[in-house]
């Protein structure tokens, strides 16, 4: 288990981490999710030992490692921009940690070829990083981090520099890898879809603090506050009330509790259609319907419809 207690980290006047405590259970895949500047990467770097906290302590499997250098923490770290050793081949990049540890040559050869197999780079072992695509470089980065059998695997926006398709492929692949190896893994991301897709637990961070820690489903269904509600998915705000676009029902006739709105625009997103609506007081909201629903209602822009939330959230504070 990774345990960070009361971590404070300042960069000059900027407080990157403001008394943050996070527990990552052994064998879990936890995402640190938040906007840029929320402190998620700094927390990851503190866990790895790449940053020293100003206060607080980090323990790995019950052992206090706060003052230990990254070399002796047994962590694998994957960087957003790969941090590939440019002058070494793919093979030598992956073998780096084992060479440093002076493992016997046969063991190194066996382990590296296993890992290259795992990340599907076997044919590219003799290439240099500059001759690889972004996705290949990041798979190499992962193999390199896994080579030393880390007790925890830390990934800092690992897919942030890749295009959308490769990103989805790799996170699926990461999930499968985790299901096989069960290495305790922490992934930092600003993409809520990525966090929900890949992780068992999500820690939502904002302004150097933890807003909520929960499994993806619970986070979505029971957000702790406004920030989490609006960060983990699209949301309509009407006064104090928050409504998800898919919880908006559209009716052609008024019915006691409904509100009158006008259809401004229909956005077709394949199976789903986003209906942009405007109330007579100028407030806008959007509803998410299926294509069949839109066709059944014969919706057109300029049309008047009546809105009823099927589910809404109000935060008490």
């Amino acid at each position, binding site marked *: 288990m990774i345990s960070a207690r009361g971590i404070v980290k300042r960069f000059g006047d900027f407080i990157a981490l403001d008394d943050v405590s996070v527990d990552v259970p052994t064998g879990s895949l936890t995402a640190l999710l938040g906007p840029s500047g929320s402190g998620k990467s700094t927390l990851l770097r503190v866990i790895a030992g790449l940053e020293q906290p100003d206060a607080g302590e980090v323990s790995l499997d019950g052992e206090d490692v706060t003052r230990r*250098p990254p*070399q*002796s923490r047994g962590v694998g770290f994957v*960087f957003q921009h790969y941090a590939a*050793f*440019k002058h070494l081949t793919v093979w030598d990049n992956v073998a780096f940690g084992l060479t440093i*540890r002076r493992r016997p040559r046969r063991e190194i050869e066996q382990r590296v070829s296993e890992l290259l197999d795992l990340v599907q780079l076997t044919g590219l072992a003799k290439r240099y990083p500059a001759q690889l695509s972004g996705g290949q470089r990041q798979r190499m980065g992962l193999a390199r981090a896994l080579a030393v059998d880390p007790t925890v695997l830390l990934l800092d926006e690992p897919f942030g520099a890749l295009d959308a398709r490769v990103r989805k492929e790799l996170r699926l692949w990461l999930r499968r890898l985790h299901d096989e190896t069960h290495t305790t893994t922490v992934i930092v991301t600003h993409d809520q879809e990525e966090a929900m897709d890949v992780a068992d637990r999500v820690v939502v961070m904002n302004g150097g603090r933890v807003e909520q820690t929960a499994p993806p489903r619970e986070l979505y269904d029971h957000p702790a506050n406004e920030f989490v509600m609006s960060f983990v998915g699209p949301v309509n705000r009407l006064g104090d009330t928050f409504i998800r676009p898919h919880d908006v029902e559209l009716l052609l006739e008024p019915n006691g509790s409904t509100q009158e709105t006008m259809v401004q625009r229909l956005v077709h997103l394949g199976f789903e259609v986003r209906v942009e609506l405007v109330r007579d007081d100028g407030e806008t909201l959007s509803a998410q319907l299926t294509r069949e629903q839109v066709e059944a209602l014969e919706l057109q822009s300029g049309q008047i419809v009546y809105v009823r939330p099927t589910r809404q959230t109000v935060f008490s504070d």
Partner: protein
Amino acid sequence: MTAKYALRFASLGYLALLLVAPLGFIFWRTFEHGVGPVWAAVTTPDALHALKVTLVLTAIAVPNNTIFGVLCALAIVRHRYPGSGIVNAVVDLPLALSPVVVGLALLLLYGRGGWLGGHGIVFALPGMVLATIFVSLPFVVREVVPVLREIGTEQEQAAATLGASALQTFRRVTWPAIRWATAYGVVLTTARALGEFGAVSVVSGRLAGQTESLTLYVQDRYQSFDTGAYAAAVVLALLAMATLLLMTRLRPKEGIQ
């Protein structure tokens, strides 16, 4: 097309007129009467001694400035501490200061009545070594600093998380990235050390056969209307060219990386 030829003509013409012509002329004057007299001129005891002095100065200054230069570049780029900006500026001082001023400064410090005077430094080889080191100090630092900035710290951090100590990280990650910049710095340092005149001239005392480097010898011979000056100058020029040639041979083919 005309513009392309004009550009080529202008640049080549400029180089020919200002660099190649004077150098070619020296070679021509030197070998005017064949190789025999040249050989005789460069093998006089004073000329050989001057060559030896120059080689000794270079052999001491270059390794010192290489090791110190790389360390200094690491200190400037990788560590933030109060005054690191000043270090960065001070390194450039030898480029800005006239070598004569450097020589005088050393004379004041180590000469008779100076703070550290009276240890046989001035008017002897140690003083000349100090002067040579001083003027050729910035080159390795200036070549290595931008490369260190460009490669950033991520590769070094990756090495650390993989278990590499600071020394292992330097040897396996940082050094391969900066070695060509260092090599280029070494060539420039060598060229500067071979050719230094002003600072060495002030601190050497210019005793023929004792504290005369090759550059000083050239001027000395020239002022005595001795054609040996040309022969010695050619030796200097050949040394410099050999250094540059070595550099181009060492430089890897661009492409990998």
